């Protein structure tokens, strides 16, 4: 999982990543740590500055030991021109191309890229826009200007008190717990591979449901322009006009981040109950905010480019919609895993049953509920496909 911290000057972005860098990975690799700290600048050349060095005897460049660092910090990412920022794609993907080979970065499948950046809203001189594809590789973006993440009054008072005692920036203690982090990462990755019925259902709801368009079937390239004047968005508040479906990379990041949140909650308190649906939607809120999923016009007009605030409002609505269909979706998925196809329901005093299993003479007595269609703002037609898929898988077993 790769992270970026964005925000105004003095919000503590660099301090935060430096604390993680020192307190968990013991700082620089050159000083027995596990990290590489890169300060971005207009002429940056990651390949030559960080990953290779000149072998004078052989008169050619050779790899440095920096390829197996566990944390790569790129400070002030958007102080490098957008083209130069492309060099960080490799770190985001965990791969560096070297003499026609792909070299895996990090160790045991683990490496962490943390970048800090100004928001690129034009208020800072000397900064550049960040490429969307790079944003997509920075799975979690925390906006330290946003209420949820910025220091509280108490935090600020403590910082001020500390500064009055020692005006220098306080560095975190040097410590290396990278072995524990790698082990935890493996456990989280395993959990993310098979997150269970509820988490998988939320993931599908987000991936397929958000792609639904009542006007054009799929959102495609006409979204969100086509939302203006759409008969299904007459009041300009249709949830389908707010957000589109994430790409596969974001989906994977979302599931993994939810698994990480679950892991952390259990680490703090093994008896802590967690709710997969809540974890998944919170994870989507955190991983989706800067993935260009939100309607840019609404983002600017209604939310003054505050992505976290907009996505939090959208996720709340999505969760409400999911919760109102949760019983249907999860029952269908559970039943499909047991080899039973249940896609129509009836309600008998608050209990749901399978309408298709009613004898013919009773079918008219109980209203048929058919929740899985795309004639709604967030599509549910995908559940039919999902059930068919699970039934096929079940046959295979």
């Amino acid at each position: 999982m790769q992270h970026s911290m964005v925000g105004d000057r003095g919000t503590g972005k660099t301090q935060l990543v430096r604390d993680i860098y020192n307190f968990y990975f013991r700082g620089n690799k050159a000083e027995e740590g596990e990290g590489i700290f890169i300060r971005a600048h207009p002429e940056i050349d990651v390949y030559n500055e960080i990953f290779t060095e000149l072998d004078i005897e052989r008169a050619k460049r050779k790899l440095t030991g920096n390829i197996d660092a566990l944390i790569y910090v790129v400070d002030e990412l958007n102080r490098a021109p957008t083209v130069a920022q492309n060099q960080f794609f490799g770190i985001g993907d965990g791969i560096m191309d070297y003499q026609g080979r792909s070299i895996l970065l990090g160790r045991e499948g683990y490496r962490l890229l943390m970048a800090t950046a100004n928001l690129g809203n034009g208020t800072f001189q000397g900064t550049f826009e960040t490429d969307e594809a790079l944003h997509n590789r920075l799975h979690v973006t925390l906006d330290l200007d946003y209420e949820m993440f910025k220091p509280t009054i108490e935090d600020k008072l403590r910082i001020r008190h500390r500064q009055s005692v020692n005006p220098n920036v306080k560095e975190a203690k040097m410590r290396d717990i990278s072995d524990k982090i790698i082990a935890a990462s493996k456990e989280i990755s395993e959990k993310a591979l098979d997150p269970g019925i509820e988490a998988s259902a939320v993931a599908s709801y987000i991936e397929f449901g958000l792609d639904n368009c009542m006007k054009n079937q799929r959102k495609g390239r006409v979204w969100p322009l086509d939302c203006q004047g759409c008969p299904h968005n007459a009041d300009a508040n249709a949830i389908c006009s707010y957000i589109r479906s994430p790409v596969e990379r974001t989906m994977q990041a979302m599931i993994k981040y939810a698994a990480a949140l679950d892991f952390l909650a259990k680490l703090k308190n093994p008896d802590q109950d967690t709710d997969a649906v809540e974890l998944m939607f919170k994870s989507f809120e955190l991983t989706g905010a800067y993935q260009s999923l939100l309607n840019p016009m609404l983002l600017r007009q209604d939310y003054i480019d505050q992505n976290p605030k907009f996505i939090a409002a959208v996720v709340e609505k999505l969760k409400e919609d999911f919760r109102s269909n949760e019983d249907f979706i999860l029952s269908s998925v559970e039943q499909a895993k047991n080899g039973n196809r249940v896609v129509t329901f009836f309600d008998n005093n608050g209990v749901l049953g399978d309408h298709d299993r009613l004898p013919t003479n009773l079918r008219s007595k109980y209203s048929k509920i058919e929740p899985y269609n795309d004639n709604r703002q967030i599509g549910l037609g995908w559940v039919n496909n999902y059930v068919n898929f699970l039934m096929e898988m079940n046959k295979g077993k």
Partner: protein
Amino acid sequence: MSNVTILGNPKRRSRFDPDLARKVTEEYEIEERKNLLKKKKAPEINPPSPQQSDVRADIKGEVYIRVPNSKVVISRNESYQGLTWENTHYALADNGLFMPTPSLFMPYLIQVRDASQGKITLYTADNKPVPRDEAEDLWKSLSSGHKGGCWTWLDAKFSENKNVWKITYNHKTVQKGKDNSLEGITETLEDCIREDCFVDLEFNKQGLPTRRSQDQTYTQGENIYYWHPIEGRVAGFVAYSSRANLGCDRLLSDSSSALGVFACAECTSKS
């Protein structure tokens, strides 16, 4: 899926009951049967008949029918209504009778159908041929709501242990001190349909269906609805206005004034 890899603590209480369709159907069946029975004359209680040669003296010849290819006679009418499955066994045993197993009853059902179509002739316990119109009457009550249809216990109990399914049948009353208990023959469940669906009238040796109907609607004489075995449940057979069901999912504790049994008795020689 192992619990280790599940995200969150799954403790969701679903509003969905996979068995609800069966429950509401059963409630409907009970209600309909009760209504029909109100209109139907109470079944005749069999007075003793000393004339039988190969059946017990208290078996009234014309009321019982010989089940072809067996040494068993089965009552045309249900009796012992209002008892649970176990108490029905005890009540039958007290009178020297027993409950039919699916392996006896399901072939008998087909034989009654064939007799109603004139393909075979059934015989009463006193060896008189059952007229075709009577066979038709009997068939209709076993396959539709005719004269109240039927709702009867069958002698089969299902159990599962480590994915091995067993059937126990031929239950006999065993006295242990002051208490009675039931003991039967237990064997592994043979291949049979393991889903709730309409099934063709093809049964294995244990009397359970072996072929799912292509057309999942009721066709009298061609298929019946089947509720597949559930752990700890017993078998029963129902016929009402819209279909006939073989249920292997009945609770032992069920009882109703409409739920009885087609009592059976052993003959001394094969008919």
